[in-house]
């Protein structure tokens, strides 16, 4: 299947440091996603809410159906053929994910429900036994609530304090402040790879280096990074990296916690149950080795297999081609929205993923979202589970168009026309 045309992109389509890469055959790719042919309110669907959840290619839908239709069994303990097949498919998915993020070994890929559970697992299993009053956790102002609240809970439980590194008015992390807030008290530094509300791409390697010099352990929330760019956990130098399957074209309910081996091995189990033990008596239970020790209970087998299929699909297209296409989309979207005088873009970082957050003068985001919905355009309106970001920019909510590699410049033109219609309806 030749999804990729190997001709280099025009120079004008490169932006924001994206690697020059092969050009995508977008029309062909769109046929891989059945839902993209849907009509909404009598109009062709323009799906620009990918940061909330991405659509699923036929390969993922088929992998899940095939598992239920021909391989369904519980894994890791059956001796019968179906169980062996299901186990092999599930573990093959783990190995694919390992290769995708360049983890040292498959057992460092822990299946969880999603990025949120990954953060909570680290907070409770790594943080809770270790942190003491006076210790600190450093996060940033641009975090999603899922990378704020688990740390607040941990602070309540341990007496540790939460520190927050601020952002500037372009939506970039202030590195000087991040560095200043690090000290020997900092035990954990947790930050997004890519901001969901602003699209800002953080310099993870640099931040991890600073945090490590202060003696902190580093958790990176990669939920918004894996749909857009190659992630090499060893090159980034992080200790923990979490992401969600459904944002990277896989199913909901499955995600990944990557951790450095010695850290994962030192973690007490997050939950107790089946799968995670070697032997149980009422006197003593011996826990299983990684990854099973951190995966209590029957996992989301179909979800893991579906995520494996998504990873295979992404790998086939290639992140270079994805990054080049999305850079061109972001440039086009920034321009066509920027030409509308009533529009103000929120989040204008120099290094940005394909997210267009904006407000329209005199129109609340939810009104804009309802009008755009009438035109078949799906965007997210609200605070994007990042209320501190909204507070920074002094807005209650924004409109957010978040793009994926199957989006087109024509769809962004439809969005811009829709925004002009919003202005017309509300007379602004």
């Amino acid at each position, binding site marked *: 299947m030749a999804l990729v045309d190997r001709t280099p992109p025009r120079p004008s389509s490169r932006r924001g440091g994206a690697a020059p890469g092969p050009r995508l055959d977008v029309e062909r790719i769109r046929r891989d996603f059945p839902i993209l042919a849907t009509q*909404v*309110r*009598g109009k062709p669907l323009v799906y620009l809410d990918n940061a909330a959840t991405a659509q699923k290619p036929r390969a993922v839908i088929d992998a899940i159906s095939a598992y239920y239709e021909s391989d369904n069994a519980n894994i890791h303990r059956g001796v019968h053929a179906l169980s062996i097949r299901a186990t092999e498919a599930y573990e093959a998915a783990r190995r694919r994910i390992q290769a995708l993020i360049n983890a040292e070994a498959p057992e460092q890929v822990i299946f969880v429900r999603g990025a949120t559970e990954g953060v909570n697992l680290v907070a409770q299993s790594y943080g809770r036994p270790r942190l003491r009053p006076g210790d600190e956790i450093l996060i940033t102002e641009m975090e999603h609530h899922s990378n704020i609240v688990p740390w607040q809970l941990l602070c309540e439980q341990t007496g540790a304090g939460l520190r927050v590194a601020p952002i500037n008015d372009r939506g970039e992390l202030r590195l000087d402040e991040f560095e200043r807030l690090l000290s020997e008290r900092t035990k954990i530094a947790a930050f997004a790879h890519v901001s969901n509300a602003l699209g800002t791409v953080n310099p993870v390697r640099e931040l991890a280096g600073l945090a490590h010099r202060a003696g902190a352990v580093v958790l990176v929330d990669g939920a918004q990074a894996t749909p857009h760019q190659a992630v090499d956990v060893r090159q980034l130098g992080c200790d923990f990296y979490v992401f969600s399957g459904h944002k990277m074209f896989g199913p909901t309910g499955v995600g990944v916690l990557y951790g450095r081996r010695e850290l994962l091995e030192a973690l007490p189990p997050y939950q107790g149950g089946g799968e995670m033990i070697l032997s149980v008596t009422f006197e003593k239970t011996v826990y299983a080795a990684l990854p099973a020790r951190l995966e209590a209970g029957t996992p989301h087998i179909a979800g893991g297999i579906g995520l494996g299929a998504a990873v295979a699909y992404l790998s086939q297209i290639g992140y270079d081609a994805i990054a080049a296409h999305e850079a061109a989309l972001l440039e086009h979207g920034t321009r066509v929205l920027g030409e509308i005088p009533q529009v103000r873009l929120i989040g204008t970082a120099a290094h940005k993923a394909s997210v267009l957050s904006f407000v329209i003068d005199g*129109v*609340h*985001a*939810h*009104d804009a979202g*309802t*009008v755009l919905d*009438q035109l078949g355009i799906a965007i997210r*309106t*609200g*605070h994007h589970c990042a*209320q501190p970001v*909204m507070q920074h920019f002094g807005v*209650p*909510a924004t409109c957010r168009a978040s793009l994926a590699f199957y989006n087109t410049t024509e769809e962004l033109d439809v969005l811009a026309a829709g925004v002009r219609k919003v202005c017309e*309806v*509300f*007379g602004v």
Partner: protein
Amino acid sequence: MKPDPDVKLDDLYQDVILDHYRRPRNRRELADADRRAEGNNPLCGDHVTIFLKVESGVVREVTFQGGGCAISTASASLMTEVLRGKTLDEAKAIFKRFHGLVTGEPRETSEPHGLGKLEVFSGICHYPARVKCATLAWHTLDAALRDDRRPEDVVSTE
């Protein structure tokens, strides 16, 4: 697959709603209010404060501050116009009927709701995500009318 309801944009954003959004009526603090309540819609960051002056069981004055989207601002504005001079029991009854209107509650009669200009919100029932916008001011009013509430109570539509 259930077809999308055939609702036109003009049915939702009727001129009356747009007019009250652009020029909200009674949007001010009521210095001599004897009841007030605050309401939040965490979903969209809307915040409204309702001020009431009640004499002998009749709403003498009602004003609001805050707002947000066109639907919630216009709803608060129209509510203040409709409620002035109504008894507390009438106010509660109107809220009940209004709630039925915007949530599309099934009815045994095809008679009009008897809600007068509040019927401009009849299109909302086709937009479940926006019902909370239309009812925020009313839920807040309802809280202000309750006798057992503490002054620090804040209503949330979540």
